[in-house]
């Protein structure tokens, strides 16, 4: 991981902490937008440009707008304190959770980018997709090929879930028109 990567990782952690600690909801939403953008760049460094573009457009763009609209429609509590007070029991639970993950799970993981890792070296999944994509489908972007061809049925279910969520939002708000 390059220096850029480590800088981004620190930026992302600081932004996440600020999101958690800001008492003002508007500030938290804005910092969360910056956090999403940082994550998008991190995904690019980890060789996932498709994911990064989606995260930048949806995570940093649409999510921020929807959150802003919600506090405009409901309420934004006024406060004179900058930061939340720390909830000690919650911090204890979360701390234990992270420590267990860090000490017990982390050493068992494969190193990031290890070409021996089963996800990448599996000849029947990743390697098969990489080697056969062009021959099978005639497209070069393997992500598109897996999305629309190899796992088209999954994508179909997912599209229907998104459609259903749109309908559910209208139902909850008791609206009968899309626009």
């Amino acid at each position, binding site marked *: 991981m390059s220096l850029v990567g480590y800088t981004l990782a620190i930026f992302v952690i600081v932004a*996440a902490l600020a999101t958690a600690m800001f008492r003002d909801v508007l500030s*938290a939403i804005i910092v969360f937008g910056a956090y999403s953008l940082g994550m998008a760049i991190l995904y690019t460094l980890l*060789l996932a440009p498709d*994911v990064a573009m989606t995260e930048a457009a949806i995570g940093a763009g649409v999510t921020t707008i929807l*959150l802003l609209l919600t506090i405009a429609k409901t309420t934004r509590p006024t406060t004179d304190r900058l930061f939340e007070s720390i909830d000690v029991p919650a911090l204890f639970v979360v701390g234990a959770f*992270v420590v267990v993950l860090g000490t017990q799970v982390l050493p068992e993981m494969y190193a*990031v980018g290890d070409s021996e890792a089963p996800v*990448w070296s599996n000849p029947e*999944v990743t390697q098969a997709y990489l080697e056969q994509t062009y021959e099978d489908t005639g497209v070069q972007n393997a992500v598109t090929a897996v999305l629309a061809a190899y796992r088209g049925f999954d994508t179909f279910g997912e599209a229907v879930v*998104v459609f259903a969520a749109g309908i559910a939002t209208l139902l909850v708000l008791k609206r009968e028109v899309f626009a």
Partner: protein
Amino acid sequence: MIELLATRYAYALMFVLLGIGLYMVIASENLVKKLIGVNLFQTAIFLFFVAVAYVEVDGEPGGSPVVPATTEPAAGDLILASPLPHVIVLTAIVVGIALTAVGLALIVRIHAEYGTLREDTLREVRADE
């Protein structure tokens, strides 16, 4: 310890972000902030999937999953990230925004019904009913 962090940085970052997201869900009094916490937790999971797909050889990162336009690539020649986790994350992001919107709609309804978004006030109001 340092060596562990240097080789597994993405997973360490993911654990920290999972913790922050979980803390927001538990400790925040405001419902909108709780939902932001859920989103933060979600992005940490996305980071896990993307890190699993990442590949490098001798410290040199491979390529993004765009294969060359040949029908017979030489075996072991393609050092490209795995496309499958990317697809899973791609669909998860779009489902995530749709579900966030449903959550926000519920928050708007709660505010219209009870006039507050604070969890403790909500609990009092509901106990009085």
